């Protein structure tokens, strides 16, 4: 598929991600064949979420649903599991809390290159001081479908709804590790987190994520016990989830059972091959999804700066004339977002939006701008910039990668007034 001009790309993005690139007609029939609704797949989820994989409980939030809430409720928050929620893993296919007995017997083993391994219970975590972190939680694959304008990449074709603004509460990680007095070896350079979930076959790689112990992101990390003020729903990682505010979703390990001090990062395929970004730009056909190495790529750590238009959406039926364009913006939380610029005419003129102070460095910022819609087609765009001067690429396709992660191109919404 030829590289599209920015204008053409805008048109494509405006159809809200549907049917990008080459989509043989039979692929669409899958949606007509009585595929289960989100509410049937995960008990307690809202009906009408956009399902990417029923067996793995993968679903995103339509923006019209997402924009209704300041803190994204469990009923509509996007979800991604790595292994089927079936058989003895069926307990986590619900927004209800994990079974009581399970929580009571839950342990987190803290081990590895330490003199004194420890085991923690949920009760022990509950007894410690708790802190809140409001943070955007976003799937690394959010926006993957937009890369199809250059070349489609395999996997769930996420639009913009693989994100939410969530209040977490739990035990600060660094203070906890200090207090455990484990005396890690000087050789320990990495912290690896693993969850309860297991692959569907004995040959499958287990899910694990590793962080450099020196990573400043860990300074804000908590072992979260609550999400939006109540115990974490099973499907979102209860009873305890490692939350590193500002980091992509996969780094926030659900159903935490193990923390390891290690000399190397985990050999898990989810760390060594999956959820990585190439160090330098790559082209389709030149660098494939199996070409990732620890040397030529890095894990998807902090959110790349991003902004998304919440209103008007194409389905709002906006009329020509004055309009208020609103949306959200966020980054990795290390520095503030300073500007959001908005264009209502396909990027010819840009206006600064009013940007509201966020609830926390990692929460999303609301912004709004006044504009005028012409009758006919209007291409709305937005672009955020932060205090380090980091901004969104006008052409997000420059960051094309064969796994389709970290989309943060300037958002385009096409409105016919």
């Amino acid at each position, binding site marked *: *598929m030829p590289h599209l001009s920015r204008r053409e790309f805008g048109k494509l993005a405006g159809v809200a991600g549907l049917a990008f690139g*080459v*989509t*043989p007609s*039979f*692929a669409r*029939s*899958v949606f007509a*064949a*009585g*595929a*289960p609704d989100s509410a*049937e*797949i995960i008990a307690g989820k809202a009906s009408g979420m956009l*399902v*990417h*994989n*029923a*067996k*793995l409980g993968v679903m995103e939030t339509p923006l019209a649903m997402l924009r209704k809430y300041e803190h994204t409720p469990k009923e509509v928050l996007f979800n991604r599991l790595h*292994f*089927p929620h*079936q*058989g*003895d893993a*069926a*307990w986590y*296919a619900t927004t209800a809390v994990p*079974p009581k007995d*399970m929580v009571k*017997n*839950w*342990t987190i*083993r803290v081990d590895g290159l330490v003199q004194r391994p420890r085991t923690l219970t949920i009760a022990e975590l509950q007894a410690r001081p708790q802190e809140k972190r409001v943070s955007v939680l976003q799937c690394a694959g959010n926006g993957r479908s937009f890369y199809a304008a250059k*070349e*489609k*990449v*395999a*996997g*769930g074709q996420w639009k913009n709804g693989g994100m939410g603004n969530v209040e977490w509460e739990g035990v600060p990680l660094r203070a906890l590790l200090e207090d455990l007095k484990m005396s890690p070896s000087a050789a320990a350079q990495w912290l690896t987190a*693993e*969850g*309860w979930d*297991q*692959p*569907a*076959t*004995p*040959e*499958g*790689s287990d899910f694990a994520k590793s962080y450099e112990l020196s990573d400043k992101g860990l300074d804000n990390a908590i072992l979260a016990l609550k999400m939006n003020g109540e115990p974490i729903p099973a499907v979102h990682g209860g009873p305890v989830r490692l939350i590193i505010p500002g980091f992509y979703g996969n780094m926030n390990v659900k159903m935490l*059972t193990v923390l390891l001090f290690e000399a190397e990062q985990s050999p898990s*395929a989810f760390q060594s*091959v999956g959820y990585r970004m190439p160090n330098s730009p790559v082209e*389709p*056909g030149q660098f*494939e*999804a*199996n070409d990732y190495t620890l040397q030529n790529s890095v894990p998807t750590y902090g959110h790349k700066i991003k902004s998304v238009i919440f209103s008007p959406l194409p389905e709002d039926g906006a009329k020509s004339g004055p309009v208020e364009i609103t949306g959200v913006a966020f980054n990795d939380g290390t520095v503030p977002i300073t500007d959001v610029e908005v264009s209502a005419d396909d990027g010819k003129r840009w206006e600064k939006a009013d940007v509201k102070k966020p609830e926390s460095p990692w929460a999303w910022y609301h912004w709004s701008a006044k504009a005028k819609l012409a009758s006919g087609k209007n291409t709305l765009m937005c672009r955020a910039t932060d205090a380090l001067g980091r901004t969104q690429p006008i052409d997000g396709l420059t960051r094309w990668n*064969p796994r389709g992660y970290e989309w943060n191109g300037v958002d385009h919404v096409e409105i016919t007034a």
Partner: protein
Amino acid sequence: MRSASALLIVLALVLSPGMGSAAERFKLPEGPGRDLVYGHCQTCHDLQSVLDSAGIRRGAWDAVLDNMKDFGLRISADQRATILDYLGTHLGPNPPAAGGAEVAKTGPVDGAKVFEDTCIACHQADGKGSPGEFPPLAGNPDLFLAPDFPAVVALNGIEGPIKVNDQSFNKVMPPFDFLSDTEIAAVVKYVRSQWGNDAARPAGFGEVTPDDVATLRKKPMTAAKVHAYRESLKK
């Protein structure tokens, strides 16, 4: 890192979503290798992942297969080549026109071949399965619970906790209803005759025919219902 409790077994039944048969929900285009995709790819994810990726290059599918190996896909080199040809052609950038006639499956159906293409990934070449993951077929008394029972499982899958020769299992077998009536009858016959299973065959025990399978196919069950059917036969 699991600490499973008995409670979970109950939950497994309560919380299973009601999903239709896989082949019905995810209709892959006809072509050689299609059944290998049905047979191997749904152990870990449903086929929406495959259909939503339709249109990617053969080289990209090749990489996907490598990645899937990391995530647990176990297929022979021949099977891999067939699957790659299938995906690269029928789910590639320029697929042949859809709506063509069904590929006629010619020649006699070989139960051993069906087993090798479809069942072996989980139940293993020696029929011993994998402890705690996939039940054995070798020495599995369920094969003779009722003449139709294994065919019902093959058509509809099964979900729920079971014990086979004192080993516990609680995974989900997806439906294999993409197999033809003849193929299902052949593979059931094959499995019942392998690994010494023949010795357990009750006297006068009838074999399931393709016509029987056709009749069973008209009465689809959920995987949980198949589990209940098994329980009723065990009584």
